[in-house]
């Protein structure tokens, strides 16, 4: 590869990165503008006097902390339960045999292609009938059911662990629950990490679930942010919207930057081809 070619490629990539990152920069810039900055046309690119008070106002003018707490609770419930349950089921598919296993596995793979929202609305109607709307029980149920994709990931990982480990444990009188809990699960931390990131990001970002299942005063950040901030005249206060959005998006971005090596090269390879 020639030098000029390499330079040109770097230049193109730099331009692409700038385009991809600029919306985030605009969000941050908007979050520091005063209402006067927001009203001026042509727009201010970067406020001359950053207004950090937007952040405190974004927290106080809606129930930001309450919504954040709900988001964290739901994310915690689904992350823990989904990961444990998926590992448990994945172990079954990887290490045990029984009639019907092959068919069940095909069904599992097929469910990955089911349209999620199509089942979500009727699930809401059923939970409403059971008076479990506005509680966290739906997330407990979804968590316990596991996720087809994560079950698949755990299955792949457990299938690669040498059989000798399991046999030694059986000779020592350990049952399969013990083998799973004491030998297999502690070894699977790369998959656990992937599972935690994926389920946390999903739960944190989910909009329809909480919008349907939770009332406005017990909802999550995703829903609280989507409806936005309005002043008493019913007009959106976009600088507060931006500040709230920055605080809402930040945890996910930080998680990503810490784990980006895994994100960018790790589990993307597994499960596709």
């Amino acid at each position, binding site marked *: 590869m020639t030098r000029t070619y390499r330079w040109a490629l770097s230049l193109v990539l730099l331009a692409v990165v700038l385009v991809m990152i600029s919306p985030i920069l605009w969000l941050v810039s908007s979050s520091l503008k005063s209402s006067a900055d927001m009203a001026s046309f042509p727009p201010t690119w970067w406020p001359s006097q950053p207004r950090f008070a937007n952040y405190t106002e974004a927290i106080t003018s809606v129930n930001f902390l309450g919504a954040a707490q709900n988001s964290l609770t739901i994310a915690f419930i689904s992350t823990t339960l989904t990961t444990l349950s998926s590992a448990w089921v994945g172990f079954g598919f990887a290490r045990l045999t029984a009639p019907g296993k092959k068919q069940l596995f095909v069904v599992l793979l097929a469910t990955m292609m089911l349209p999620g929202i199509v089942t979500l609305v009727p699930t809401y109607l059923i939970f409403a009938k059971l008076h479990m709307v506005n509680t966290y029980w739906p997330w407990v149920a979804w968590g316990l059911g596991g996720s087809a994709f994560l079950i698949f990931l755990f299955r792949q990982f457990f299938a690669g662990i040498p059989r000798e480990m399991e046999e030694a444990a059986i000779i020592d009188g350990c049952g399969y629950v013990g083998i799973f809990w004491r030998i297999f699960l502690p070894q699977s931390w790369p998959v656990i990490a992937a599972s935690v990131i994926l389920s946390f990001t999903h739960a944190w970002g989910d*909009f329809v679930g909480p919008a349907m299942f939770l009332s406005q005063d017990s909802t999550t950040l995703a829903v609280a942010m989507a409806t936005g901030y309005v002043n008493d005249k019913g007009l959106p206060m976009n600088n507060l919207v931006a500040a709230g959005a920055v605080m809402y998006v930040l945890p996910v971005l930080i998680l990503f*930057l810490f784990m980006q090596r895994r994100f960018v090269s790790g589990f993307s390879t597994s499960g596709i081809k």
Partner: protein
Amino acid sequence: MSSALTEVRRSTVAETAVERPDRKKKPPTLRKARTFYLFVAPWVLGFIGLTVFPLGYAFWLSLTDSDGLSPRTHFVGFQNYVDIFHDPLTLSSLAKTGMFALVTVPLSILAGLLLAVMVNQPVRARGLYRALIYLPAVVPPVGAALTFRLIFDRDAGAANGILSTLGANPITWLVDPNARYVLYALVLWGCGGSMIISLAGLQDIPRELLEAAQVDGASYWQSFTRITIPLLSPVILFQVITGMIGSLQSFAPLLLSSGSLSGAGAVPQGNYLYMIHVFAQYFSASRFGYASAMLWLLFAVILLVTLLIIKVSARTVFYTVEPEGASK
């Protein structure tokens, strides 16, 4: 698709499950079977309770005139399905959704593939490029939609700011007929997700193949179209299928305009996708029977589209390992 997925499984199983002819006594097998059912039970129960049963319930609702509240609902047979095909709003929203999928899915995949090829070259700091291009794909949908609302705001938005520095007139982006371009831009912003998947596929291509082609005098373009693309085709097929499934049930325009499930009225006509109409029927009009029929129609459409893609691609997609059923 599922055959593509099971391939990895087969190869890893083949490595680990070394033939063990001994130890074929009955009792342990029986116990093992019972333990297997114990282990898969959470997923099986979840699948029945949270997927099969709701789908069945929705089907039953779709045969009634339920409004979700009054206890007196009547069985109306397939009337709701007949109504769908006489409702121009429903049909046009379905057409818009198809259009949306046909535009955004190929564009995202192409952009992702192009970027993947670029960040797969030996350039300096390519890890950083990969991470930063992928970054928008992890921004939660609500955060992304809010950001685009701010960029395309009529007065305070960056888009019109750029136009005005170029001396052009500002555009009202978030209403018809321009709102659809904002929607396309929002979807394309996340093409880093597609890049990562294609990149993983590119890295799986054996280096020797490309080197051999180079030795034989193939140009870069030739080895790209004759080696890279065929070997990448399962990965592309995977993206086409998941992309279609995702965009057919997209409700992203709702987040771009009102940010509330009952706010379908605020969505510009050009962005009035099928799923938004479903939400409007459920949560604004309380037509539970009709909305459930709409959901089942969508389910059928997605199933048909998926099967069609698999069928059409069967001749063009190239598997390095024989797909399901060929061995074992």
